């Protein structure tokens, strides 16, 4: 999808059409989640600190993200993909690989399918998308990049929307791309390659693999060598079930107050538990993540004896783990996550039911009520008291009153 979050926002608010718009936090620690092409003209990019973005484009319009809306739109787009082939591997909310090799008989050649998908998305969602067609995942991704709108000499140039790279044309297509276009070439590798005088993928392709390995190490060298020749034998893997669930929060300024951190841990534990329950799962391993102002990151985890989807229980373990973290030097980010997920329809019974069985039943009952209240009055209608902050608008709960139905 092209500038997905922003495109959805613009669709919902037509007055934003043609303006430099970003989705992201406008506070001192805010980060740009997505930027419209009009904003990109000024050099604004996603993942850029908002302060930098505002310097580049003083008239930049900040829009709050509506992630549940993006999720809904994403779900509908993914089901459009699924109507063409079950072989869909989502990469993110707005990106997926499709293996259409066996869909030809029903839907036509890959190029035809690309057109159909693109026009279906436009018809149903009024959103623009880009499709890359090739024989492997990495080339298909590069092809879709090549078909996207881009900024050339300060002007938005609309892309072709679809780019087909056939096997015989593959090497020529790759050769012309800059090295950083390849998967796995980040800023560090890019610098190393530049030092070797390698600017294009073609430069890499011409190089003996030994030289590449010498510069980048065995694994990375071979990997880039293969990609530069369009050799990528990774299959499209349809979505597997989630292996972990986590929430994290970056603070506007580093936090040293244990009470604030505790409130955040409780709030996130509750959110994680809620997601577990809606996926009908339970988890046995709970972990907390803490990132200091220096970006040093700690992860502590604990496996409990019986799987849970209860926010209070997850918060208890998370708080216990977090007690081991020294917060004096200031915490930039905290996170709570769970793994070791199991199906909640299986309930390992306890021999000592009288003692912890009752507690468990009570917790289940409370969770059921919480879920029901949230279903009827919204996600912020009920929550743990410990997670309420003095300023309720800062994050977490809003000061919106629940709407009582007649």
């Amino acid at each position, binding site marked *: 999808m092209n500038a997905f979050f922003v495109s959805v926002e613009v669709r919902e608010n037509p007055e934003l059409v043609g303006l430099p718009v970003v989705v992201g936090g406008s506070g001192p620690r805010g980060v740009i989640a997505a930027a419209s092409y009009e904003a990109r003209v000024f050099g604004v990019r996603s993942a850029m600190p908002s302060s930098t973005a505002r310097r580049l484009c003083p008239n930049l319009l900040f829009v709050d993200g509506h992630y549940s809306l993006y999720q809904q739109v994403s779900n509908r787009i993914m089901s459009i993909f699924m109507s063409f082939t079950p072989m869909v591997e989502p990469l993110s909310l707005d990106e997926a690989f499709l293996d259409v090799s066996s869909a030809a008989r029903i839907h036509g050649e890959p190029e035809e399918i690309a057109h159909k998908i693109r026009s279906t998305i436009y018809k149903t969602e009024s959103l623009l998308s880009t499709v890359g067609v090739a024989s492997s995942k990495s080339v298909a991704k590069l092809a879709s990049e090549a078909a996207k709108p881009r900024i050339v000499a300060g002007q938005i140039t609309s892309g072709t929307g679809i780019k087909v790279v056939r096997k015989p044309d593959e090497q020529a297509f790759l050769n012309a791309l800059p090295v950083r276009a390849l998967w796995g070439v980040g800023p560090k590798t890019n610098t190393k390659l530049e030092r070797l005088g390698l600017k294009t993928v073609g430069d890499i392709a011409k190089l003996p693999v030994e030289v590449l390995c010498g510069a980048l190490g065995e694994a990375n060298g071979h990997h880039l060598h293969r990609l530069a020749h369009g050799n990528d034998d990774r299959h499209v893997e349809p979505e597997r079930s989630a292996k972990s669930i986590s929430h994290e929060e970056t603070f506007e300024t580093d936090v040293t107050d244990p009470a604030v951190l505790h409130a955040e841990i409780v709030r996130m534990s509750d959110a994680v538990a809620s997601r577990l329950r809606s996926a009908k799962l339970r988890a046995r391993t709970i972990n907390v993540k803490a990132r200091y102002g220096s970006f040093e990151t700690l992860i502590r985890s604990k496996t409990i004896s019986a799987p849970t989807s209860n926010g209070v229980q997850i918060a208890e373990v998370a708080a216990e783990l977090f007690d081991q973290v020294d917060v004096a030097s200031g915490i930039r980010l905290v996170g709570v996550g769970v793994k070791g997920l*199991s199906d909640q329809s299986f309930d390992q*019974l306890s*021999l*000592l039911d009288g003692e912890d069985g009752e507690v468990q039943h009570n917790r289940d009952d409370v969770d059921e009520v919480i879920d029901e209240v949230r279903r009827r009055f919204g996600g912020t209608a009920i929550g743990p008291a410990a997670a309420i902050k003095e300023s309720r608008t800062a994050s977490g709960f809003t000061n919106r009153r629940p709407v009582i139905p007649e």
Partner: protein
Amino acid sequence: MKFRCERDVLVETLGTAGRAVSTRSGLPGLSGVQVELVGDQFTVTGSDLDLTITTTIEVSGESDGKAVIPARLAADIVKALSPGAVELSTEDDTLRISAGRSDFSIRLITSDEFPKITDIDAKPVELDAEQLAHALKQVVLAASSDDSRPILTGVLLAAEGDSLRLVATDSYRLAMKDIDGIELLSEGEQVLVPSRALGELHRILANGKSITLRLGEKEASFTVEGVTLTTRLIEGDFPNYRGLVPDHHPNTLTVNRTALLDALRRVKLMAPQEGTPVRIEMNEHGMELVAVTADVGTAREVVESSYVGEDLVVAFNPRFLLEGLEVAPGDDVTLLTTDELKPALIKSVGFDNYLYLLMPVRVS
């Protein structure tokens, strides 16, 4: 302190005592082991306050002394030396380790930070090491590893007639073993020993034939061939395990233990996710094991067996079932059940001194 010793002997001694050393303790003294030489007797002690392991070996001593040395570092150095004799000596605040052309000097840890280890004042009781090792293997696995339920991390030692009874439960299963002919405690007396200590004890039991046990008020110690393991006892009341074991059970399945284990290991392949149960379907024809994982597949296997009782389907965590069957004695076992929600009892045919109680998984 100064002495010479074979490298391999020293490696083992430092390693054994080092197993009690806490890796996460905040106390610097506890990251070390205490070493002491008296004549030709060299003693190493490691402790995390809950568990203490002391091991003594014969060396060729030159001068007596006592110090606390960094446990991991010293063990790693000795392990890496070339085979043969190693010389250890201390001078002021330094430990010197030399062998062949290698020469290491490492700083000692202040010895006043090391906990004082006192002997237990109790009558020693001799036990057969092999018998105890076997019993530990059968029982310790059922203890909980969840520190938030300290009582369940212990193994109960209790007098039962003229036997010593061992019981452990993590609340999902319970293992119980009676070792006949041991009068360790008086009737009605019981102690709760941390399962971690018993796990360590199991490792060192292989070294000897006989073990000396001392039970104190708050501690217990076990001595095998120059190694003494001392553990704090857990305070609190162990669940009333007698009330948990059902005294009657309408359904009885009898099956060859190895055949059931083999089938279970195969069928379990279709329940790879922790928490996915394996079902045992029982009727007049015997039993069938079934495992189903949605979107993955199904496994079924009929296991030759005889069944007396109502038609019944019970689901279990396959790991719990496997662990119990693996340590049960004998060729044939019985699975005694009441219904699909009540505890099931595994007993070995011809052995009355071991039982494994297991709660089913409720499938909704």
